[in-house]
């Protein structure tokens, strides 16, 4: 899992509470608490990025539907694997082809590539 800065104000959804303590009607009283809801476990394919050959065009950051591209000081620094569902849009939209084999997959192709969740690529 990546080093994601969580919204420390809220705790993750509690699964040890009985039905009597749920909010009637499913009202969510803590704004923005979806950040505590870990959807990264849904992923079967994981995006990996060649950090050396990345041009920092930020198109992946623009296109990601889950705000799971972490940008600091105007540069992509990591994927938020707690919330990336592995949809592959970043890899599909990445406009940059590597000139040498991808640093993590060893394959030619895009700077961002999808790999099976079961495989480790040292990222």
């Amino acid at each position: 899992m990546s080093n994601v800065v969580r919204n420390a104000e809220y705790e993750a959804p509690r699964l040890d509470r009985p039905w009597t303590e749920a909010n009637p009607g499913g009202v969510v009283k803590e704004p923005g608490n979806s950040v505590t809801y870990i959807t990264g476990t849904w992923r079967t394919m994981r995006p990996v990025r060649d950090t050396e050959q990345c041009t920092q065009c930020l198109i992946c950051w623009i296109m990601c539907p889950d705000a799971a591209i972490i940008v600091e000081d105007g540069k992509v620094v990591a994927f938020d694997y707690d919330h990336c569902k592995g949809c592959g849009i970043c890899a599909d939209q990445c406009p940059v082809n590597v000139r040498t084999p991808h640093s993590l997959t060893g394959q030619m192709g895009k700077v961002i590539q999808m790999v099976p969740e079961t495989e480790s690529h040292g990222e």
Partner: protein
Amino acid sequence: MIESKYMPLDGATSVAQAMRQIDPDVVAAYPITPQTEVVQNFSQYVADGLVHTEFVPVESEHAAMSACIGASAAGARVMTATSANGLALMWEMLYIASGMRLPIVLSVVNRALSSPLNIHCDHSDSMGARDSGWLQLYAETGQEAYDNTIQAIRIAENPGLRVPVMSCQDGFITGHGVERVGLLPDDAVRAFIGSYDPPITLLDVEHPVTMGAWDFTDYYFEHKRQQTEAINNAMPTIEAVRAEYAELSGRPQPTLDMYGMDDADYVIVVLSSTAGTSRAVARELNAKGKKVGVLKPRVFRPFPAKQIVGALQGRKAVAVLDRAISFGAHQGMGPLFGDITSALYNEGVNGLQIVDYIYGLGGRDTIPAHIESVYADLEKINAAGDGGRKVRYLGLREP
């Protein structure tokens, strides 16, 4: 007690008058026969400045209920009205309103569901919605429709409940039938319903919330358990509101309306307007020395199971009149019969002779001779000790 002013009104206009007195914040509705007069009259009150309501003339009943849900979530007191296919078009949103625990009040003027196309009364529309998480009140007369509408506001908005309420009356029979209806003074109605102060609203910017959000495998079940708990425990709230209203209006508001039930051997259980016909027949038979009675539930959801079982226990024979078919249920029984027989079993009452009569579908008249035939059948059933076929048909052309 406060004196009502009595005037000749049809049932639909009685409800429109109740809505005028309630003066809801938002009404979003679409016209459909035989509900039309509810919305038509109410929109006139809006146009005449008699209410402060934001009236939303939507493009469909799905949109009507959707707008009601949005307004209710925003914190408004919200009402609407529909019939038959309009109610069917609301279906998806009915469950969303109840699941979000929004206290919307819906006036249903009961009408047969197509197909074949029919605009007249039966209960196939609202009976289909009996599992939608809405409370259901049924009215015999325009007066009861008026009274139920006002009570529905208080019941729905009760902080311990927060459940939407469907207030039903029979299309045309009471909806278009002009009767003597007593209206409470406007200020008495407004004092009775009080102001609406929702605990959580979308427009409370100091306490921002999300409503109607994704509820996954880990919480949906708990929310449904809460919902059924609220409805299971609704009866004391309903009865308290009915008692308070009875005291205010001087009109009794029993959950079970009983006629001749002190010593009745033969009982008809029936909802809405046909209870009147049944009572008239029972009165004549009582005068001839027959021990017959009529039991009319005014509340169907939550189902007053214990009260009904208590009232039927020990009778010689009982006929349930159902103005809808629960297609595919055992022998094609009606929903009221299904609930009553289930309640008898679950309360440990065995051996009661009880049969179901499907009647009045598509507005078929149910006349006193039909009711007399039911009481005569019940005597025969008791004498023979065998109910024979459980589900029968009243007023149907048999081969």
